[in-house]
């Protein structure tokens, strides 16, 4: 059962909307837990032996795809998986659309410029800590061009994706993504969808225990679910989050303010930002790279290098792409069926080599597979995920 916690920037589904979300969760649990493993059996029992006999060698991923997409079992699973993804968004869009005006009002009230903390007065009923609390900020740039790799198709089939404004001051894309992410991951990211941020923070604390970052940048932050984790892990640090999508940033800002986690959000492209050279101790991203492109990858790494002070650290959390050809084929389902166009190319991209092309010294770059030591509370909702981490020191 999901540990996801409702908060005031999310709509309250009515009875049937809740039932739809519950159904999507049950359906997807079945598709990935019961039906998807059957594709491995079909492949091992029937498809792989036939391919080996025909080719006289092990098949490559394209040959596996050609054979598997002809298999009725795989066709059914795949078609249902696709429909479940559409249903997932539909089940979240309905309540969001209904409550959107109130959610936009709430976000706008939180985006007002910070009132200068008044001097302590006897009449003030607010405690001192609340008055002097650090605020989040939001800086949008309507002239920022959307990268083609981001806008050509709607990533993850989310209608309108991360960037479409349906009305003035829209926050819908963020609202939908937050609850949709919880449903997509079967609740595995925890109460605040924070598991990826927690994983990368755990990596830093394990591998770089002396690091006390004063400035942290989270690239491709979307709703700031991981950014907030960094702000909480290093409360003395100034934490920034950037993304190209305006509605997700408005939402991220309102959400972080509601959580009392100070984050500075700005609408910028990770390939080239307006931050000063050498101005960050830590630049991170969480499952962002596989949504970009081949040319963008190098530009992003070069920008990370520019932004880091000497000795600063770049960390990108990614999804391992599978060790066997069949695993790779199954991982790449998302690429062909869930509008993750670039993710299939990531299977054969050497991230360390790309980081070197971006200007990092070979000896300062590493790619690790990392599983976080989980707390008992985390084990209640999450599997012990293994992530791929690209780490490079300036």
């Amino acid at each position, binding site marked *: 059962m999901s540990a996801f916690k409702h908060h005031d920037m999310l709509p309250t589904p009515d*009875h049937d909307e809740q039932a739809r979300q519950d159904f999507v969760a049950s*359906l997807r649990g079945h598709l990935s837990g*019961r039906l998807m493993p059957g594709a491995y059996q079909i492949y091992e029992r029937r498809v792989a032996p036939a391919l080996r006999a025909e080719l006289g060698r092990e098949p490559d991923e394209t040959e596996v795809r050609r054979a598997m997409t002809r298999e009725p079992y795989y066709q059914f699973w795949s078609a249902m998986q696709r429909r479940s993804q559409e249903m997932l968004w539909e089940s979240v869009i309905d309540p969001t659309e209904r409550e959107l005006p109130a959610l936009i009002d709430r976000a706008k009230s939180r985006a007002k410029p910070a009132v200068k903390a008044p001097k302590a007065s006897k009449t003030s009923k607010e405690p001192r800590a609340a008055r002097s609390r650090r605020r989040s900020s939001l800086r949008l740039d309507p002239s920022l061009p959307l990268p083609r790799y981001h806008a050509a198709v709607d990533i993850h089939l989310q209608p309108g994706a991360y960037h479409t404004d349906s009305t003035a001051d829209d926050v819908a894309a963020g609202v939908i993504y937050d609850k949709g992410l919880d449903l997509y991951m079967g609740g595995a990211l925890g109460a605040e969808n924070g598991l990826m941020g927690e994983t990368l923070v755990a990596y830093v604390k394990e591998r770089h225990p002396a690091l006390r970052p004063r400035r942290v940048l989270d690239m491709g932050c979307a709703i700031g679910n991981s950014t907030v984790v960094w702000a909480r892990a290093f409360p003395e640090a100034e934490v920034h989050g950037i993304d190209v999508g305006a509605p997700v940033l408005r939402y991220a800002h309102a959400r972080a303010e509601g959580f009392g986690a100070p984050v500075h959000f700005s609408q910028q492209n990770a390939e080239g930002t307006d931050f000063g050279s050498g101005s960050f101790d830590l630049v991170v991203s969480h499952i962002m790279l596989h949504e970009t492109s081949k040319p963008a990858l190098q530009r992003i790494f070069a920008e990370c290098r520019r932004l880091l002070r000497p000795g600063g650290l770049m960390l990108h959390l990614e999804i391992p792409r599978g060790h066997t050809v069949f695993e790779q084929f199954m991982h790449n389902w998302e690429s062909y069926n869930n509008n993750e166009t670039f993710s299939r190319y990531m299977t054969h991209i050497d991230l360390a080599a790309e980081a070197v092309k971006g200007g990092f010294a070979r000896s300062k770059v590493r790619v690790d597979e990392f599983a976080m030591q989980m707390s008992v509370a985390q084990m209640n909702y999450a599997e012990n995920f293994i992530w791929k981490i690209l780490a490079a020191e300036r």
Partner: protein
Amino acid sequence: MARRRTPARSKAARKHPTKAAPTPVRLPRIAKGKKPQYFSDPAIDKLLWMTMTLMEELSVARDRIDTLERVLDERGVLRQKDIEGYTPDPKARSARASRRAEFVDRMMRAAQAELSASSSAADPHEEARRAVEG
């Protein structure tokens, strides 16, 4: 006794009686990008799409009935707002989760049957034919 509803007092108007209704925002429902074709006949894609939508709505209806029964049991009186506001307790949530899992399992047998068929080499129909032919 059935409540009379005038057209002017829509569901939305009753929910927000003090606010003038602004033009509702319509959010997009279709993702940009081409839908893949999964079966040799595109009609099968559409039929499966519809079946799954029906499956969802059936599940929704069952959840609603479940709510109704529990509310009736708990309060002895049926009121519409009781159903809308019902939040299942942990026990009810867990019972619902098991029922949903069972339902999904039953629906998916169409796909899973192939797995059990592929695990046995002998054709049972061949055996049946031999048996009936004597």
